[in-house]
């Protein structure tokens, strides 16, 4: 207990850093939704200014989104640096100290990727930038989790999640992450909404992508933001994202159903799985709304943020479930479950917080 009490402020700081990162992802969503990624052509300067001294009077149009994104990213970088140092100096768990270092390296890499995206003008870098942002968010949330009381072994007393259910959670996590990468790929095509209707697609279950059809839809599309012409690959990507959503939702439904059947009633994983299902249903709704609103920036950005939230929820549920299984196995095979102190393995007392 003492270890977690000692880390209370560290834990709060980790949560704060994760929340700031969540907002940063939202701001990144606004940047791409407003096609403002290149509104500030230089980096790390902003229109020749030191980015922290760029006059607010000039935060106009797309600059507002891109420059705010850079400033918040710098703030998250600072938070992550402090977090890594804090962990290194105070944390007993060696792996967690190194996890702090990994978070620091990830945020540095993320900043460089963002800068290179601007300097080299390569769209694919933007996709990596988005994917790493989500991995980084999960990493910070994981640090927040393992520095919280929720990580104490006593919290897992009396429940564990079967291996098959844990596997299902990881599958759901993988599918949600894949969806996020597909979504980022769609955003970085700069082709707008490749399929403008839902639940059908150009009035069909699967639209045609032949040259005649593509020419027709491109001729008829009147969009003031003049997105790139729609190509067959854009339509396939969009439809894959829809199918992926259906698959991820199905897996989360199966997960909720399975946890109700296979996990004891008091286990929090049942609530987590149900919460994840509710989140994913809302997320699917926002996906549909994104299409119906012709990719309105605010709606599309909420869709991005709900996706990030879903990834965090699924991955942390997976981590907690896996930990419950490990602790239960240790408790049953090695020694009676030792509340609050630790477990005995191979004759050694292993402090709870080293796990």
């Amino acid at each position: 207990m003492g270890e977690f009490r000692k880390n209370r402020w560290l834990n709060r700081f980790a949560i704060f850093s994760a929340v700031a990162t969540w907002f940063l992802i939202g701001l990144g969503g606004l940047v791409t939704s407003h096609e403002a990624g290149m509104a500030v052509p230089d980096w790390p300067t902003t229109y020749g200014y030191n980015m922290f001294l760029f006059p607010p009077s000039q935060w106009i149009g797309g600059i507002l989104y891109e420059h705010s994104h850079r400033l918040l990213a710098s703030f998250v970088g600072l938070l992550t640096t402090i977090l890594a140092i804090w962990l290194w100096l105070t944390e007993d768990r060696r792996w967690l100290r190194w996890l702090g270092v990994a978070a620091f390296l990830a945020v540095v890499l993320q900043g460089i990727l963002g800068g290179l995206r601007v300097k080299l003008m390569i769209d694919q870098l933007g996709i990596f930038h988005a994917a790493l942002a989500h991995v980084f968010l999960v990493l910070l949330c994981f640090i927040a989790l393992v520095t919280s009381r929720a990580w104490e072994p006593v919290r897992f007393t009396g429940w564990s999640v079967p291996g098959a259910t844990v596997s299902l959670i990881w599958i759901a996590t993988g599918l949600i992450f894949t969806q996020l990468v597909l979504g980022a790929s769609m955003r970085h095509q700069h082709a707008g909404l490749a399929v403008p209707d839902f639940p059908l697609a150009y009035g069909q279950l699967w639209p045609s992508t032949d040259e005649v059809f593509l020419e027709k839809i491109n001729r008829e599309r009147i969009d003031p933001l003049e997105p790139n012409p729609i190509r067959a690959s854009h339509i396939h990507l969009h439809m894959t994202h829809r199918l992926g959503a259906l698959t991820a939702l199905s897996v989360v439904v199966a997960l909720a159903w399975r946890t109700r059947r296979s996990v004891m009633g008091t286990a929090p994983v049942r609530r987590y799985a149900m919460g994840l299902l509710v989140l994913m249903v809302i997320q699917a709704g926002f996906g549909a709304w994104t299409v119906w609103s012709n990719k309105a920036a605010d709606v599309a950005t909420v869709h991005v943020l709900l996706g990030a939230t879903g990834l965090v929820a699924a991955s942390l549920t997976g981590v907690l479930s896996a930990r419950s299984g490990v602790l239960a196995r240790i408790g049953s095979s090695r020694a009676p479950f030792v509340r609050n102190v630790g477990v005995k393995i191979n004759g050694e007392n292993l402090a709870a917080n080293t796990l």
Partner: protein
Amino acid sequence: MRKTILLALSAVAIASVSTNYAGDITGKISLKGSAPAEKDLPIANDPFCGKLFAGKPVTTTRFYLADSSGGLADTFVFIKSGLEGKTIPAATGAVHVDQKGCEYLPYVFGLQTGQTLNVKNSDPLMHNVHVTPGAKSGNKESNKAQMAGSKDYEYTFEHPEVFLRFKCDVHPWMFAYAGVVDHPYFAVSAEDGSFKIANVPPGEYVVEAVHRKTHPRGTGITQTVKVGADGAKADFTIEVPAN
């Protein structure tokens, strides 16, 4: 020696005669079918650009600018083939594009490879000039900030490309499109759809008309013309498919 001088003089004479007989290719671009309705540009929603437009009519997209007679503006017309073996004059003078009222003016223009393009910012606010060539065109992408009152930018492009896009990411509705070809025989149709490609040497040519929206791949419709001393005429009809 005398023979050589005589031959040289003859060549110069023939060349000058050729130039003298250069004619114009004129014509009209007509739109057939009913084009989709244009949409308002979101300029008024921008607090800074909105001020420049206060009290003025709302500006719309400019995809299908057709007059009452069906004349279609902003179509790039150029000689696609037939110039092989002919002396192509080097590019002279500069083409000017202005960023005014949070729009690029003109929206569609022509440019010869190697010709100077001068980009000005007349607005009291900043823009960025983002050149976004096609991946396989060979032209280079660039993105530069242009503050209010700053000096003009100059560009040259070495490879033909129809269309080479310019955009402003600060104001995401701002676009301009250049038809870049490796000779000076091109024109952009006016508001009534008319165009004139001036001083074309006599000969037979394939002339192409490309409309940015109707021909999104940059390949338009063609016809063969024979240019004589009195020039040639080439009318084009661009169809919009029925909805």
